[in-house]
């Protein structure tokens, strides 16, 4: 499965079009990581716990999107975009969407 955030896949031609596919996931962190984030807020720096959380969530959202594309019979997803929303305390929703196509 080829995934690209541009409209075309370099070196290939789009021969089929299957529509918009998407995947989303909502993840929450466990309390321990949140406490560290609170401390970090005092001294600044990277919130590694949150970075990891969002990275995993993004990966899962992408996997769901790819799964949907595979079920439709596509072999590539192009024009992929992401959307991150902070839902509640310590929880984030990751949304990935793109166009499923067939390339060769």
């Amino acid at each position, binding site marked *: 499965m080829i995934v690209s955030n541009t409209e075309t896949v370099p070196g290939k031609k789009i021969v089929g079009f299957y529509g918009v596919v998407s995947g989303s996931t909502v993840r929450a962190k466990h309390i321990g990581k949140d406490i560290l984030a609170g401390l970090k807020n005092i001294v*600044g720096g990277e919130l590694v716990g949150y970075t990891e959380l969002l990275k995993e969530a993004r990966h899962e959202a992408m996997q769901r999107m790819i799964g949907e594309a595979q079920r439709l019979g596509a072999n590539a997803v192009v024009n992929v975009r*992401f959307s991150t929303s902070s839902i509640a305390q310590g929880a984030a929703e990751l949304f990935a969407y793109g166009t499923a196509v067939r390339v060769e």
Partner: protein
Amino acid sequence: MGLENFSQLAVTAGSVCVFLLLGTLVGTRLERAHYRRIREREARMREFRVMTLRTLPVPEDWSVEACDLVTGSVVISLDYFKRFLARVRMLIGGRLRSYEPLLDRARREALLRLQEEAALRGYHAVFGVRLETSRVANANGNGTAGVEILAFGTAVKRSTTG
């Protein structure tokens, strides 16, 4: 009775000052160290091609062997002193100078992670690079814990002909 209240007030004021001081000192040191690391890594990644163009400007002898979506992200937090300064600044308006280095660091860090991940997986260039920013809410719900910067693009692996 009056003396008790006064000492309580003094303790509270004292702890606030300690927090602010701690935030400033440690925060500034961390920031400087981070910038140093960023400059080192940028120097190392200078050969790697990164472009925001959506069409690949391919040199003659390139033929694309593989391509995939790569991302680099970072969630960066703000120290107490900066937030305090920003609140004060919001009363009069103007540039929030305390936030600018935060976002600059986060963007450069995210781009570096994008390039490093692509290079690690054997790709030679990333094109169609886009940057997105989003807020991460605080655990208490009372404001911004930080900012997430996401850099994503399509990485290509070339196979030179001949």
